[in-house]
């Protein structure tokens, strides 16, 4: 099994999430993903980067955010590293509804990122060790 990794480093500015989105779209087009899987992966990664910039770094420029895109025979794995405010414990496991069924208009943009990640990725993990936060997104390469 061989693993290939591309690393992308950006400053913590929201306009840079556009660059990340276009990069992951290009990468996915080289993988055995159909259009919907490519679009979903791009959306999930952009949501994760936006959340890191706005929540971990408080939407302040001048902080570094790195992404490793790794591909092996079975998976695409995206690791997003930051040194900002860590996600509160248990947040990833929280039961986040995509859309409140009783009142659709109470949908909360700030909470949507995690729900979108769950919809677009096969697995989402998060670690915070020694001030380094890592969000790990995994997606199977097997065509659905």
């Amino acid at each position: 099994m061989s693993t290939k990794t591309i690393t992308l480093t950006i400053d913590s500015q929201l306009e840079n999430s556009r660059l990340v989105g276009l990069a992951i779209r290009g990468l996915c087009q080289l993988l055995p993903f159909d259009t919907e899987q490519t679009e979903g992966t791009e959306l999930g990664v952009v949501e994760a980067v936006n959340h890191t910039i706005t929540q971990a770094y408080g939407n302040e420029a001048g902080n570094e955010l790195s992404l490793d895109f790794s591909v092996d025979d079975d998976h695409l794995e995206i690791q997003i590293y930051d040194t900002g405010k860590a996600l509160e414990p248990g947040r990833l496991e929280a039961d986040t509804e995509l859309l409140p069924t009783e009142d659709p208009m109470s949908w909360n943009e700030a909470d949507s990122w995690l729900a979108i990640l769950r919809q677009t990725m096969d697995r989402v993990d998060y670690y915070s060790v020694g001030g380094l936060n890592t969000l790990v997104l995994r997606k199977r390469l097997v065509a659905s």
Partner: protein
Amino acid sequence: MIETHSHGDTLVVRIHEKRLDASISPALKVELWDLVAQHANRPLILDLGEAEFMDSSGLGVMISLLKLLGAEGDLKLTGVQGAVAQTFKLTRMDRVFPMYPDVDAALA
């Protein structure tokens, strides 16, 4: 960022952006809210035909517009396709917004 024209009483707004993302959403929201303030009570068609991508911040702009118009408002979306359509579908907001393939269909 936006271009407007009228069809009778209906105001048609075309968004000239390929990516409705967090880098432009705050400015887009201001433009659309200003437009609604200038054209109160007119039916509104928002043409997203140029958009190839939309994240939750872009979707948030659409939802804020729907809330601003209120229950009596008349907002239709046109040209929703590809990754933009997928964002609506993933968040189930495709059930909330009336969508039409193009402006002519929305006007019919």
